[in-house]
């Protein structure tokens, strides 16, 4: 055996070894971001809103049943409630107690996280009013679910076919910080589509899920 051949064999072994090792220690292959849970600019809790308060997903993600994108809700949607709700209940109670103790007027308590929201939309919490003189700045959320290039995923098709949000996004209502539940790989998509067509998914019997390439790639 020549030197050259030995070099080649060692190289191949090294590459294979790296790949196997990568799999075993749970490092994802390129473009697979399963488990990705970035820190968000506002510490928003899906557990609180979707879980405890049982808000409907579509209340905030209004595009999900009528557009390709479910959409990150605009701050104006948050303000529907947070016009009035400025802090968690315990914080409000504490303020009431303190005010009573110190024998002063009740101050409006504002949580640190909501203060960020108010700063973004230009809301003056002292007067509980929008203040036009304040500069507004959109909130820069970090995108959690990012589909690979060349794929066109359409939320409205899935939502209207009664695929539940949790099917792909996992138990969002239990997540304090949102993380990517599924690996969003093509195999994962296609397996589900095949299961639907073969009737394996009991809640989606009779539906037709396309397995044409151009169903998603164009």
């Amino acid at each position, binding site marked *: 055996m020549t030197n050259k051949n030995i070099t080649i064999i060692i190289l191949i072994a090294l590459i294979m070894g790296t790949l196997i090792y990568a799999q075993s220690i749970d490092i994802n292959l*390129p*473009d697979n*971001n399963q488990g990705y849970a*970035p820190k968000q600019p506002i510490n928003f809790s899906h557990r609180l809103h979707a879980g405890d308060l049982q808000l409907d997903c579509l209340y905030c993600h*209004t*595009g999900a*049943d*009528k*557009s*390709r*994108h479910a*959409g*990150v*809700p*605009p*701050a*104006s*949607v948050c303000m529907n409630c947070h016009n009035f709700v400025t802090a968690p209940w315990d914080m409000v109670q504490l303020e009431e107690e303190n005010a009573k103790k110190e024998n002063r007027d009740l101050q409006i308590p504002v949580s640190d996280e909501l203060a960020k929201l108010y700063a*973004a*939309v230009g809301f003056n919490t002292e007067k509980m009013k929008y203040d036009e003189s304040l500069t*507004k700045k*959109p*909130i*820069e*959320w*970090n*995108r959690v679910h*990012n589909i*690979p*290039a*060349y794929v*066109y995923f*359409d939320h*409205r*098709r899935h939502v*209207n*076919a009664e695929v539940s949000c949790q099917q792909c996004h996992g138990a969002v209502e239990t997540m304090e910080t949102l993380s990517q539940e599924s690996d969003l790989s093509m195999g994962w998509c296609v397996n589900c589509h095949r299961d639907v067509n073969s009737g394996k998914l009991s809640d989606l019997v009779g539906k037709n899920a396309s397995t*044409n*390439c*151009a*169903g998603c*790639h*164009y």
Partner: protein
Amino acid sequence: MSEKNTKKYWKGVEEREFTPEFAQTLESEFPAKPEEIEDFLTSPKPKTSRRSFLKIAGFSVAGSMIASCVGGSIEKSIPVLIKPEEITPGKAYWYATTCAGCSASCGILTKNRDGRPIKVEGNPQHLLSKGGVCAVGQAMVLGLYDTHRLQKPKANGQDTSSMEIDSAITSKLAGINDNVYFLTGTLSSPSTKATIQKFLSKYPNSKHIEYDAVSYSAILDSHEINFGQRVLPHYNFDKADVIVSFDADFLGTWISPVEFTKAYTSGRKLEGKSPKINKHFQLEGRMSVSGANADRRIKATREEEVAILLAIANKIAQRSGSEFPSWQGKNADSKVVNEIVDSLWSAKGKSLVISGINDVNVQNVVNFINEKLGNYGQTLDIENASKQWNGNDSDVKELIGKMKNGQVNALFVADSNPAYSLPNSEEFKTLFSKVPLTVSFAEHIDETSSLAKFIISTPHFLESWNDTEVVSGMMSVTQPTVPATKENRTVRQTLSTWLGESTDDLKILQNYWQENIFSRAEGLSTFQTFWDNSVHDGFVKIKPQEPVEFTEFALGQNAPKVQSVSGDSYELVLYQKAAMLDGKHAQNAWLQELSDPVTKAVWDNYVCLSQKTAEKFGVVNGDVLKVDSDGVTVNLMAQIQPGQHDNVVAIAVGYGRMGTERFAKIGPKWIEGKGTLEEGKKVGKNAYHFTQQKAKNISFSNKVQLSKTGEHRDLALTQTHHTITEPEKFGGERRNMVRETTLASYIKDPSSGNHRPHMTPELWEQDFKYEGHHWAMSIDLGKCTGCSACVISCQAENNIPVVGKDEVFRRREMQWMRIDRYYSGDDGDVDTLHQPVMCQHCDHAPCEGVCPVLATVHSDEGLNQQIYNRCVGTRYCANNCPYKVRRFNWFDYWNQGEKENLVLNPDITTRSRGVMEKCSMCVQRIQEAKTEAKRLNKPLADGDIQLACQQSCPADAIVFGDVNDKESVVSKAIADARNYTMLEEMNFRTGVSYLTKVRNRGEISDDKHGH
């Protein structure tokens, strides 16, 4: 077993003659090979050593591995703070507005995504254009994102602000008492016109002059002589059974081509047992789009045309018992004259004679014929006249006279470029700089605005409000689809500011409508409802203006005289190309790279001449000729044009525009790549220098001498690219891709001219059953005029890049659609056919079997799918495609961060280097329609899916739908006896089929069915 037609079709002379160069192009799908690899693999002593080849190969592998391991960076999702109620991210919304590409003013809809327009489509409800848009209209959306558009006003070449420029101009105006002139293109906006009048009324001896670079002035002038009113008739081609056109390219560029094409093709429906379709005579010296579609095309110089016109007028006068002076031309072919007169006389009141010759005395005779045939009130409407073109050549002449005498104190120019397009543009330039106050309203720095002391930057029409009275009683509304920059203002808004009135453009417009237009509204409503409805629809029908008094028809006094050419002089005909028109949009790269419908050339203008004339001068395509008319010279390449008159040469106007220098470097930058232009050069040459200011009108023909210069510059012709002819070594058999017949033959046998091959029995009987949808398309060659609107529509919809001239030479143009143009017959009298060709979506596709990575596969709805992220770029599919419709990305054509990228359609990928692409049958539109139908829980109806090419086709030649639905329009088209598919004998089972062209001719077509 093959069929043989006696008729031969050819795309260019080189194909007909089968020149060795042409045979060479058939050898391989891709003409240029990467030299290094080719050399390394085949040569015994390669230039590249084995060691360095492996080094490069190894580096690419390692590089791509490292690149693939880098994790993606954090991506932001930034929602709006307060969402407008009607906007949902990811959903398209549409605005109805009016195209301002030319002043024909077609109704359009713009598709907006994420706050910006990305596509122009026709407005099907619009009363004139009825859903059609031309290539220029389609390309307007690219112009919106043009980085060279002015963003700020300029004073003496320096950027300034609206406030400063206003005070500078008004202080100058304060010192001017009279003689203020406003020069614009045709202005069919009543509100702008009124504002200009109001502004000028402050200065005595002032005038608003309208001037069109390509003028229709003679038609208006002749009507002033004949009927006492200077009007442009509104032509109704749908009511015309016989159309005689003297050099008027009404299907290509003349007056309102989209509207005319719609009307013209509506008169060419083959319905019933003995269908009647209109008969179209075209007399011309060059080959125009209309000439290519004519039932009877007669080659003639302008002198011969006028002789024939006079002879017809004489005969019509005799038959109608009216007087006609003894005007006569030279050598009118009496056979032609009799044929036309008989046709016209048998269609009295249902015929139409038109002429594109801008000479009042010629138009005078045309009007006489129409009047005696009783066509006024039928096929020509002067009561509800067209306001699409209103230029007045004499006024411009008068203005220049005044400028010479120093009688012009201030000159305002808007939407017009006289320093480029006037016959005496050099003289105009000197005179213009002497006028004390010159202000130009412009979107770009152009020939005129660069000379003006002040430039007011105007917004693009897609970002401004406007109104247009296209035809008397038909108001079209323009609304902004995206907000304009604050410093860009319309003429109306600027003048109103100077007058100390409202500065809000919308308010000015609404006020005008409330005072002047609302009173003409039909039906009762409040102003707000009337306005809202008009903006929503994009147009509104109102009561026509007060009827004007027409006088009894009176023939003009002067006989038409046209220069005669003989011996060594040639008649030069100046024409507009369907893509470039008068040159206003020369900075639009889509339009520059659109193959001309007739010559199939891109990125240039040239001299069209006949084969015989070319032989006389010993020139071939691309040899530079010097064209000389009394000292005015231009050196341009020769383009041999079948069907051209031997004494006529033709040059397109609209080239040599300032600002086209920007295209020098367009296209991919690589070692062997050459620029589209030499640095500092312009695209083409200005041919307006050959126009002549005659007594009343500007003449667009001239007498010229030709001489050979000995230079040669290649013409970027796409005509023989993607040719389906077999190479000689495989038999060289010519299969006719286009089929045609005559009306007489069609009535005898609807399948005449359409010989279906005798199919051998199938080996594979159990073929795939398409159970859901089965998409198919049918294209009617009888309707397609070759106008090329679909090509640009496809380019806009599918994110197709511009590649530049050098890449076109290498047959690398990227457009998914091409329009093959075939000739038949000899050079003298050719018949021309246009055939749009895109991926044929074969059910038995040759490309699919050869892809080693399954990147191109068939869908269960009959679509041939191309999956970009699977494609590794072997190009086997393109080699195996018999229709030559696949396009390979040799480079990354898209550059990050360019403003022009805003035009990209977010519903479809931009393909990267090394990937094959082709027509997807707008699968994104199919998916969208299917998804919406499911969302709304209703069945998908026939016509819910409109493909990009189909939607804007002015001729309604393309239909698309589901063949499993037997009632669908496409199923009916496929069941038609005229239906055929290309290369049917190969059994590819294409999803795209064609309908035979039927020409309205009396003779039985001579092609025989041979075996």
